């Protein structure tokens, strides 16, 4: 844990907080104690596995990102050329822009939907709440590849979505959704919303149950309406869950690969390409492993920054 604390030590405040915490609990050894030696011995197997399967590959990726390498023959030193390419190549740049668009759909939109659904579920007295929670969680259980196939069918020109539009007389709105330059990215994004909303609902539904009912009673006594109640009681009570939900869904958006690969393969044109897809294409198809590694490194740094920011904002609020 102390190791981890250092990892997040970019902001000194939490580290100091940690130290205070440990100082109070006598049974936790501090570095320098004799007992610490034993503690490290216990931690060692875990650290070894973490190092072997996480830290070393990260180091390798960074090392490869400094080379020109086709994945098979000899690599040559490239210095920072690959990083320069990542920043100058318009396709890679658009991939990162698309990732941020997906964050809106995967994270912000799903959290908003989930909050609304949670409020409905918690306020209503209908039976079978467990059923609704399960039904909403189901998309997350389905393999993403299957999700992609299902939605490709739904979005197809002869698919149910266009069919429904034609039935209600909106046939003019029918598109080849996933092949349309304007609609492809939002269409993929909405699939992400569909998947991630379930996760958020389950998190929030659990969180709501922890909020003492006396708070709601107090709010009602003070004459708060449903909207006031939501902002004064429910939302603050769900702060921890919100941080977790936003973080997880943001990560899902940044690393999305399988959904895009199945639904559009990055097309039409480069309209739905995302960093992970570019990493895959360059590493395994084009034989540009160095550039792929540079994208991976930048994506990792970007994700760490964004998620740290979410945690920081969530912690302060």
């Amino acid at each position, binding site marked *: *844990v102390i190791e*981890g*604390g250092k*990892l*997040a030590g970019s902001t000194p405040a939490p580290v100091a*907080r940690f130290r205070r*915490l440990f100082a*109070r609990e006598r049974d936790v050894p501090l570095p320098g104690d004799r007992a610490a030696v034993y503690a490290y011995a216990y931690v060692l197997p875990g650290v070894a596995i973490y190092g072997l399967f*996480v830290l070393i*590959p990260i180091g390798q*990726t960074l090392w490869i990102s400094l080379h*020109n390498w*086709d*994945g*098979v*023959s000899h690599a040559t030193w*490239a210095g920072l050329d690959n990083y320069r390419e990542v920043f100058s190549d318009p396709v890679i740049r658009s991939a990162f822009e698309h990732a941020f668009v997906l964050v809106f759909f995967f994270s912000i939109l799903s959290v908003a939907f989930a909050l609304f659904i949670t409020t409905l579920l918690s306020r209503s007295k209908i039976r079978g709440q467990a059923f609704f929670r399960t039904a909403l969680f189901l998309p997350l259980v389905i393999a993403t590849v299957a999700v992609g196939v299902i939605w490709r069918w739904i*979005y*197809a*020109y*002869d698919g149910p979505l266009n069919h429904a539009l034609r039935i209600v007389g909106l046939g003019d709105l029918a598109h*080849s*959704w996933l*092949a*349309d*330059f304007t609609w492809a990215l939002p269409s993929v994004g909405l699939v992400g919303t569909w998947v991630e909303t379930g996760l958020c609902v389950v998190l929030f539904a659990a969180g709501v149950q922890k909020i003492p009912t006396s708070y709601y009673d107090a709010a009602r006594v003070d004459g708060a309406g449903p909207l006031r109640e939501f902002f004064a009681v429910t939302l603050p009570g769900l702060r*921890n869950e919100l*941080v*977790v939900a936003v973080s997880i869904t943001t*990560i899902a958006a*940044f*690393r999305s*690969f399988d959904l895009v690969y199945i639904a559009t*393969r*990055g*097309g*039409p*044109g*480069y309209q739905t390409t995302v960093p*992970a897809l570019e*990493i*895959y*294409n360059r*590493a*395994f*198809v*084009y*034989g*540009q492993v160095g550039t*792929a*590694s540079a994208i*991976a490194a930048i*994506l*990792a740094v970007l*994700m*760490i920054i964004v*998620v*740290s920011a979410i*945690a920081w904002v969530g*912690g302060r609020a």
Partner: protein
Amino acid sequence: MKEGEGMKWHRTHTKSRVTLVAAVAIAALAVTATAVAGSAASSHKRASNITLNVLADASTPARVKAQDTLTTQFEKAHPGVTIKWQRKSFNDLFATVKLILSGPNSPDIAYLPQGWPMVALVKAGLLVPLDKYEKQYGWDKRFTAGQRREAEASTDGTKFGTGSLYGIPVTTDITGVFYDKKLLASLGQKLPTTFAQFQADLAAAKQKGLTPIQFGNSDGWPLVHFSYVLQPIFVAKNATRNFVYTGGKSPIPTGGMVKMATTLQSWVDDKYFPDDWSSQSSDDAWKKFANGDGLFYFGGSWLSADIKQIAGKNAGFFLLPRVTAGAPVTTTGSGGNPFAISAKSKNPDVAAAFLNYLSSPAAVKLYITAGDIPAPPFTGTPGKGTVTGDIFSSLAQLEKADGMVPWLDWGTTTMFDTLKATLQELAGGKTTPAGDLQAVRNDAKKFQADQGK
């Protein structure tokens, strides 16, 4: 809030943040690892039993059937040899072939992408040079010099179209236009002899409420093939050849490419394609055409057997007419994708014997009977009155005029995907014909720079 609760919250909160940061780092880098492709079936080999694993594309039903028959015959003639085919879609195969050949479960024989993507495999030392077998089996006589050149590369992988032989084609693939005889007659037209006449037929079909050109581009590559039918009409054949064989060093001419792109864009604007062309699969499209929906279909000779089976004598095939009447015929085409032997194969001699059988006179006969176009030259024009017969006579004309032009995507390792994207953008009105040309040039420039490294 009781004392201690706050403390507990701080601890769990900070801990979860640490876990999150770690999770992000893992997640981002795991992306590179999770995207690994499947591997070919591992070979189990007993002392007397040999298993050859063949990796090929999903191909068309007629081709698969012919190859299955040849496999059974070969196994009968060579007791103890078992041949296992593993098939993948066109897109998936060429996206993963390098990875599979360099992995621990490499197949013995693989169906390869052509041009510089093939040369990249040579450069990586993944293929066996076939010169020895070329002599042993007399492939230098079986295939034309042009066909052999298409699968030749220098052993260090710096030159294409010269050096050692690395693969042999079993079929010939040319692009062109399939047409519906009844529908063309209903317009009161005969086969067009100039490009202007062809365009007039398109307009007439549209006027009459027919689908002028049946088309489906859900996989992206059909649009690339579509452009290959148009391109030779506008771009001088030697310019394309030089571009491809020099890896893009010799520039592609501006005027022709822009004309090709302008034409393609105008056909989209004139709605000569079905409404759902961008999301329809090419398999659905050619089946619809074969069943009578669509006056024309832009495709390749590899569809001949399957279109013939559905449409019978109602479907025909012609090479897109030139702008000037009487100009020599030309189209994009070549020997089919080559079959090659993996450097990791434990039985390269047996693999070579099977390659030899796949293109043997017996195989040629079988392909012709099935309605497909074999690679080794042969005499006669079987299948008269059907697409197959039309393709054979087109081939004869092309040979006489030296009109076969290689595929533009042979030019670099990334050109196929570049064309897929830029042509979609072109057809979607997101880029101009000049922008399309620029994308091709940038791709070539980058490839040249990478080759120098």
